[in-house]
C-alpha cells in the first residue's frame, strides 16, 4: 500500500529579526491510509508548525528551507497557490485548528458558515448544499436543526463537532487535528474521541492528532511521533511507546513519567527541569542534552542520528545509536 502522505526531510524556519527559528528541522515520516499518527511534545516543540506546514500555510515569517510534502504521490511544495487551493487544501488535507470552535463567526448561523466553505470549493444548488450540510451534521452526531442556530447557542462539545464536520466536508484523505479536545471536559472529550474513531472506520480517513497529552495519544494514535525542538526524538507504534517495555528515548520516558495516573497513587511525580531550548541557537549536540538525566559527553558534542532500533521504531539518542 502506498502512503497517503509523505513528509521528507522537511525544514521550515521562521525568519525573525533575531535570526532564523528552526521550528522544523529535518523531519521525515509517512502516513498510511486509515492510520492515525499522534504528534506529541511540549509547547514550542514545533507541533502546530508541522501541521500548518503540511497544509502549505506556514504562518509568516515562516519559510520552507527544504524537503518535500508528498500528498497522494505529488510534492505540493512547488505548486502555485491557486492549485493548492483548488486541489490540495481542504480537498486532500484539511485541518481542525487549535481553538477552531471559538473562531466560528458569532453573527452567522452554523448553516450559513458551513455553506460558505462549500460554495468556495463546489458549485452546488442551494437545496443540494443544504442536504449535504444536514448529512454531515448527522454524521458528527448533531441534529440538522443545529444549522439554524448561532454559535453562542451551542456548547463547546457541539461547536467542536461542527468544526470537525467542516473539516470533513470535501472528503479529504488526511485530517490534521490540533489539540481538538484541550478545552473540553473529560466526558465530552471521550465523546469526541469516540466520534473520531467511528469516522476513521467509516471513511478510511488518516488523522494527524496533535496534543501535548500522552495519555490521550495512547487512546487514539496507531503510531506516535515525539517531537523535541523541531526534530524527531522518537517515532514508534502505540505498543512500542506505551507497551510494557516503555519508550526508548529519555524525553518520551520523562514525558510519560510526568503524566499523572488516575489509578495509581504516587508520592512523587516526575518532571522535566528547564524549558525547551531557544531554536535560534539550539544547544550543541543533542538538543535535549541540557535537560537529560542520562546525558553523556558525546551528547554535548555530536547530534545523535535517527536510527531504527526495531522495525518501525526510530529513536534519536546516543544510548541507542551504534557507532
Amino acid at each position, binding site marked *: 500500500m502506498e502512503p497517503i502522505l509523505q513528509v521528507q526531510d522537511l525544514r521550515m524556519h521562521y525568519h525573525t529579526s533575531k535570526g532564523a527559528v528552526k521550528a522544523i528541522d529535518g523531519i521525515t515520516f509517512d502516513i498510511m491510509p486509515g492510520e492515525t499518527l499522534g504528534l506529541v511534545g511540549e509547547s514550542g516543540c514545533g507541533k502546530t508548525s508541522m501541521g500548518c506546514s503540511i497544509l502549505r500555510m506556514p504562518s509568516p515569517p515562516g519559510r520552507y528551507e527544504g524537503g518535500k510534502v508528498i500528498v497522494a504521490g505529488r510534492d505540493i511544495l512547488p505548486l502555485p497557490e491557486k492549485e493548492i487551493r483548488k486541489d490540495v487544501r481542504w480537498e486532500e488535507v484539511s485541518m481542525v485548528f487549535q481553538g477552531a470552535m471559538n473562531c466560528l463567526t458569532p453573527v452567522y448561523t452554523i448553516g450559513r458558515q458551513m455553506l460558505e466553505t462549500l460554495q468556495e470549493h463546489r458549485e452546488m444548488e442551494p437545496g443540494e448544499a443544504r442536504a449535504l450540510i444536514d448529512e454531515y451534521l448527522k454524521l458528527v452526531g448533531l441534529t440538522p436543526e443545529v444549522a439554524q442556530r448561532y454559535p453562542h447557542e451551542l456548547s463547546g462539545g457541539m461547536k467542536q463537532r461542527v468544526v470537525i464536520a467542516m473539516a470533513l466536508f470535501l472528503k479529504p484523505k488526511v485530517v490534521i487535528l490540533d489539540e481538538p479536545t484541550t478545552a473540553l471536559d473529560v466526558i465530552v472529550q471521550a465523546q469526541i474521541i469516540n466520534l473520531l474513531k467511528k469516522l476513521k472506520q467509516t471513511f478510511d480517513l488518516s488523522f494527524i492528532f496533535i496534543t501535548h497529552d500522552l495519555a490521550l495519544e495512547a487512546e487514539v494514535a496507531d503510531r506516535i511521533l515525539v517531537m523535541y525542538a523541531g526534530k524527531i526524538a522518537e517515532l514508534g507504534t502505540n505498543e512500542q511507546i506505551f507497551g510494557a517495555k516503555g519508550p526508548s528515548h529519555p524525553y518520551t520516558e520523562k514525558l510519560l513519567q510526568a503524566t499523572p495516573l488516575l*489509578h495509581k497513587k504516587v508520592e512523587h*511525580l516526575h*518532571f522535566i527541569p528547564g524549558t525547551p531550548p531557544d531554536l535560534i541557537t539550539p544547544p550543541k549536540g543533542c538538543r535535549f542534552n541540557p535537560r537529560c538525566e542520562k546525558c553523556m559527553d558525546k551528547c554535548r558534542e555530536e547530534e545523535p542520528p535517527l536510527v531504527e532500533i526495531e522495525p518501525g521504531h526510530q529513536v534519536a539518542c546516543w544510548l541507542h545509536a551504534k557507532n
Partner: protein
Amino acid sequence: MDNDIILRVENLKKHFQPHLTFSQSITGAKKRKVVKAVDGVTFDIRKGEIFGLIGESGSGKTTTGKLVMKLIDPTEGTMTFQGEDVTHLEKEALKAYRRKVQMIFQDPYASMNPRFKIRDVLEEPLVIHKIHGDRNEREKALIKALTEVKMNPPEEFLGRWPHMLSGGQRQRIATARTLLLNPAMLVADEPVSMIDLSTRAEILHMMKDVQRDLGLTYLYITHDLSTARYFTDRIAVMYLGRIVEMGPADMIIDDPKHPYTKALIDAVPEPMSGKVGVIKELPISGEIPSPANIPSGCRFHTRCPYAVPACSELPEPELEDCGGGHLHACRRWKEI
C-alpha cells in the same frame, strides 16, 4: 475535632438574576430564569489539608471558589472561618479576611501587571495591607517568599519583568505573592491547567512542599481527576451546583459510589497500549444541563444510566455517609 476545622460552609447558595434583554424590558415580560450556579453546598475543610473541588465546566466549582474568596456574596447559607462567621463582611473585616485567605489564579499570564517588575508584583500586597514599612524589612520578606517557592537565586528574579519568565516560574511568583501575607488558606483555581505537562508536576510538587512547610490549607479547584488524586487529601465532586460525592481522595477514585463520579473516572484517558481499536463505552451521554433549568428530583437523573422514575419524582437526595467519611448523594448506590 471541631477545632480542626478551618472553614465550614453550610448550605451555601449563589443564584444569579440575569438582566432583562431589551425586548423583555419593553414588553414588561417577567420571564427571568434564575441561574442557580451554586445550589446548596455544605463542606468542611480541616486545618492543614488539601481539599479538592472537582467538576466539569458549569458545575459551579469556580463560583464556590469565588464565594470562599468573598469575591461575591452568597444568596443563602453561612460560612464560618476559624470559628468566626464570615458570611457577610465589609470593609476592614473583609480586608482582614482576604489577608488570611489568598488566591492563586488560573492564568499566570494575565494575573500579573506586565509593567510591574517582579519586585513590584510581590510588594503590591504589602503596600495594600500596609505591612513591612521599612525597605530592608520588605526586601527580606520578598526574598524569604521567593526562597519558599524555590526561585533560586531569589535576588536575581526581583529585577525581572513578567514576560521574561515561563508559565511555571510565573505560577511560583503568584504563590510567593500569596505567601507574603502569611495566609492560613489558599484557594487555587486550576493553577496548573495552563502550564505545560512537563512542568505541571513541578508546580504541584512545589505547592505541596510549601503547604507542608508552612502548615497551610488549600482549596484546590480543578476538572482534572488525575492531578487531584496526586495532590489532594479529600475530594468533593460537584454537579450542577451541588456536591454529589465527597470523601478521601483514594476512596473516591478507587471506589466511587455515585454514577456521575464513575462516569468521570471512566472517561479519563490513561497512557497504556492496546486501546486504539476500542471505542470506549460511555455510561452517560449528552452534556451538563443549564443551571437555569435544573431537572427535578435528583439533578443527575436526565443523564444517569441507572435512573428510575423515583429519581425524578422524589425530592433531591441528600449526602449520606457510607463509612469512613465517604459521602454520596445517590438513592440507588447499593444496587448499582
